[in-house]
């Protein structure tokens, strides 16, 4: 075999291997894991109670500075699509109750949040860092995972079509 053909064959093999090494995306379009626990005010919160609604599950903490910017976005989404069956559930990660409740009061948002003081619930949901937001459709499937700050564009482009379909 000529050296040039050998090189081309080697290059093709490397490209095939590199392509084969890429892994598929995470857990989108899969059944949402169970999510139930005690809320910041001591109430019981269970995602299963919202079957039939579109649910935004938002992992957040009062010490997460980026999380502050998305609270008004959640409040607006709730106001716009609440009657169409959009619900919000928070997953309050490794936080303390007092600053967490003060955080929600300051931002004037209704975000019933499950206390995840040791972070294990968040790991069950595959949270990598804060903020992370999951969109659950009316059938209880995870249809989108948003890493980083939620924006109005995400609400319009991703959430609204699921709510109005």
């Amino acid at each position, binding site marked *: 075999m000529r050296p040039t053909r050998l090189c081309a064959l080697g290059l093709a093999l490397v490209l095939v291997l590199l392509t084969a090494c890429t892994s598929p995306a995470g*857990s989108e379009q899969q059944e949402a894991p169970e999510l139930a626990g005690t809320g910041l005010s001591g109430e019981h919160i269970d995602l299963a109670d919202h079957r039939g609604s579109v649910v935004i599950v938002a992992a957040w903490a009062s010490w997460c*500075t980026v999380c502050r*910017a998305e609270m008004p976005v959640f409040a607006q989404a709730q106001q716009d699509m609440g009657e169409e069956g959009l619900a919000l559930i928070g997953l309050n990660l*490794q936080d303390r109750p007092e600053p967490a409740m003060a955080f929600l009061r300051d931002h004037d948002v209704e975000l019933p949040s499950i206390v995840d003081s040791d972070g*294990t619930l968040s790991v069950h949901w595959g949270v990598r*860092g804060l903020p992370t937001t999951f969109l659950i459709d009316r059938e209880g499937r995870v249809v989108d995972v948003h890493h980083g700050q939620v924006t109005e564009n995400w609400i319009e482009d991703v959430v609204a079509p699921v709510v109005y379909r």
Partner: protein
Amino acid sequence: MSAGRQELRAPAPRARTRRRPLRWVVAVLAGAFALTGIWAAVVPGQAPTQADQVRTISQTLRCPTCLGEDVADSASPIAEAMRLVVAEQVAEGRSKEEIQAWFTARYGDEVLLDPPRRGAGWVLWLLPMGVLGVGAGVLVAGRRHRLLTFGAPAAVVAVLIAAWTLPGDRFEEAPPAGADEQVSAIPVLSAAAAESPGNLTLRLALARGLEDEGRFDDAAQEYAAAARLSPMEPGIRYRHAFALLRGGDQDRAEDVLTQSLDIDADHPATLLLLGSIRQQQDGADGTDLLHRFLQVAPDHPSAAEVRAWLEEED
């Protein structure tokens, strides 16, 4: 002269007869070495405790928010939580492979520090072994008359490679759940740090332990003490600031982060955290800090999010 030549030639046959036992000694030693390798690979030694298992498994998992750090050694909040989940699953009697599969289902293959050996990926794993095998074959074929000398070490290498690649769960002999109760290390670390106030490693271990238990104010004090012991280490000041932030003291956290940047203006984690805080305060320098973060750490796990965030702002 002829007598002298005879004297010079005379030792040659004796030397040949001495080499033969030497070859056998080499062969026997190589064989014993190979058997030791097989024994070590197949027969587990002293049963590891649950804490050992948690650490060993955590060392195979990648911290999703860190650069090249494993879950066992990362101080990030999500790595703390992942260690707890590993501990829960070990206590339930799950094997290393089952726990890794559980994490892979949630975080993808990239959560494993050791890439999965499946599909075309097998080729990447088999290639070095194939090269080694071919090399050994060439060596043996080219030097048949020294088959014993070279064959035995080659066999040892092959056996060691085989032992390394053999699937096996070394944790099966672990004690049952509850036999190794987890106790807080804080009292021991506190006493040790009090006895050796200048020991930086102990001070950092205590700070991290306090942080793991959610005692952020106490952790911040210990990180501050560690920063006094090693004032030019921006990473310690970053940890101090993060503990302050988690304890609700953002103003002091900002001060400490600013000090960290005075020491190292390109410390990625500090740029990211201070940039995020300032960005939320509508400060223009927040954007500058985040742009600098992207310049110094373009491959950081958070880089894509920061990039998208800045584009959104523009």
